[in-house]
């Protein structure tokens, strides 16, 4: 059966046109701007080769932002995913009221990061915030902090808020993974004497490999593109202690009028995500072959 070229063209033309004009061409423009000294406002700019990139690698604010992304990544791979895995493994067995718990843990996932940030800034507020009130009431005055205003706690505090929103996502993915494990495997391991944590880490967890790969890949991509929650809670402060790459490049473009330089940061960000994606594709394609 032969489909005419015209039919194919007619179906493809609209999505292609919209996608190329509003997604691909701005992407190309970003790469182009990254080689200019454009300020983002004036009509004139000149090409300056790779000077933005050289400047960027010398700039300590860039490295600061990148290292905050990496700290964020470590927290976001561990906290929500371990919690999600834990919840999934409990809720996978028939717990009474399991559905209600699933809904409660999944609920934050549908909220926007702006709402999430606002809600948690009340929890972390130093004077009447829930966390400090709680710590004072149980006599842990020493642990009271101005969570979002102290350099040592700020990134962790925001990560807790983000983890709250993210846990349900990994829980659901792990639940799906657990459903896919054949009952016989677990049973025969039990008969061989495996139980409790050994059973879980030696038998079940390795079988969840594909869920883990998906969960970790998404956490990695999310960690490098994180913006909304940090921007809404601290705007990167105090003293750039919570400034990540996306926040840094936004400020460079829209506050400091360094559009060209900002695009260079964007290109680096794009490349990092591209590398992660490529590795993921390799992994997941390998998984499908076997």
């Amino acid at each position, binding site marked *: *059966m032969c*489909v005419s070229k015209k*039919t*194919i063209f007619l*179906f493809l033309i*609209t*999505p292609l046109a*919209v*996608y190329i*004009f*509003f*997604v691909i*061409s*701005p*992407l190309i*423009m*970003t790469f182009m701007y990254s080689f200019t000294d454009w300020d*983002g406002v004036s009509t004139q700019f000149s090409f300056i080769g790779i000077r933005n990139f050289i400047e960027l690698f010398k700039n300590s604010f860039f490295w600061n932002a990148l290292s905050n992304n990496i700290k964020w990544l470590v927290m976001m791979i561990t906290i929500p995913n371990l919690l999600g895995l834990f*919840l999934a493994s*409990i809720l996978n067995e028939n*717990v009474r009221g399991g559905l209600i718990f*699933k809904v*409660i*843990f999944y*609920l*934050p996932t*549908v*909220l*926007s990061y*702006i*709402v999430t940030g606002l*809600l*948690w800034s*009340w*929890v972390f507020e130093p004077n*009447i915030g*829930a966390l400090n*009130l709680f710590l004072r009431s149980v006599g842990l005055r020493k642990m009271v902090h101005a969570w979002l205003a102290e350099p040592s706690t700020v990134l962790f505090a925001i990560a807790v808020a983000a983890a*709250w929103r993210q*846990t349900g996502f990994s829980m*659901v*993915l792990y*639940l799906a993974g657990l459903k896919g494990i054949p009952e016989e495997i677990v049973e025969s391991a039990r008969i061989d004497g495996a139980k409790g944590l050994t059973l879980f880490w030696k038998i079940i967890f390795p079988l969840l490999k*594909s*869920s883990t790969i998906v969960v970790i890949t*998404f956490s990695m991509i999310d960690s*490098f*593109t994180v913006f909304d929650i940090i*921007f809404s809670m601290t705007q990167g402060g105090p003293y750039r202690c919570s400034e990540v*790459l*996306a926040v840094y*490049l*936004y400020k460079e*473009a829209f506050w400091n009028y360094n559009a060209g330089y*900002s695009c260079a940061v*964007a290109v680096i*960000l794009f490349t990092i*995500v*591209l590398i992660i*994606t490529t590795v993921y594709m390799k992994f997941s394609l390998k998984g499908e072959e076997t």
Partner: protein
Amino acid sequence: MNRPWKQLLIYMVLVVLAVIFLLPLYGTFVMALKSNREILVRNIWLPPQHVTFSAFESAWTEAQLKKAFINSVLVTLPSVVGSIFISSLGAFAISRLKFKGGLAFYVFFVAGLFFPPHTFIVSLYKLFDWMHLYDTIYALIIVNTAFGIPVCTMVLSNYFKDIPFSIQEAALMDGAGYWHIYRRIILPLSKPVLGVLIIFQFTWIWNNFIWGLILTESRAIPIMLGLLNLKGQYFISWNVQAAGSVIAMLPVMFVFIAFQKYFIKGLTAGYGK
């Protein structure tokens, strides 16, 4: 012997975690129902002594969340329909019209899933400024539609390709054209996946913040930007901030509660196995 103990322990852990998970939401709702005075003099985390909706009034009218809310409705609905409709055309070509290069188009569209949105902020700002669409809802509709194409194309192509080809061949025998097959056979058979996509696209676009931040400043601000502005304006009035948050999350909460099982199922249909 140890079974009931274990059960009890598991329950306790679950309940403690559930309380921690619900605490910020609980706080929001109780704060939103309090007066300015009560916010200042009593512990804000206690239930309201006198329930009042004055904070909602302030947020809705004084803080102009009404405008932002309406903007978001006007942006979200056409963007959801637009992105799904446009993607369904491409997905149909990719998965139902067997032609060389179909896979290449698929990869081309789906690659967009992995583009960090912040890579685009300068060039999109410039593009819409040049088109004289800065600070209009059209800018937001276009961007949300265009950036919805990767995920919609991925989900729809994967769904379309599993519909038996025999139906299509029979229709072709009867002299039906491809538009007829798309419109009368494939789309009606895809209702479940279209439903899931509508729910997810609605949530994502409603919750989106970055496009509003770079493409609007006053007239066309969407709800999430309106909410952040409100936070700056009503810095001390947590009740107004809380009421604003409730207003901003209400549509997605409603959708979530109504379609809760699609959320938990649909997500796993989209990614991985």
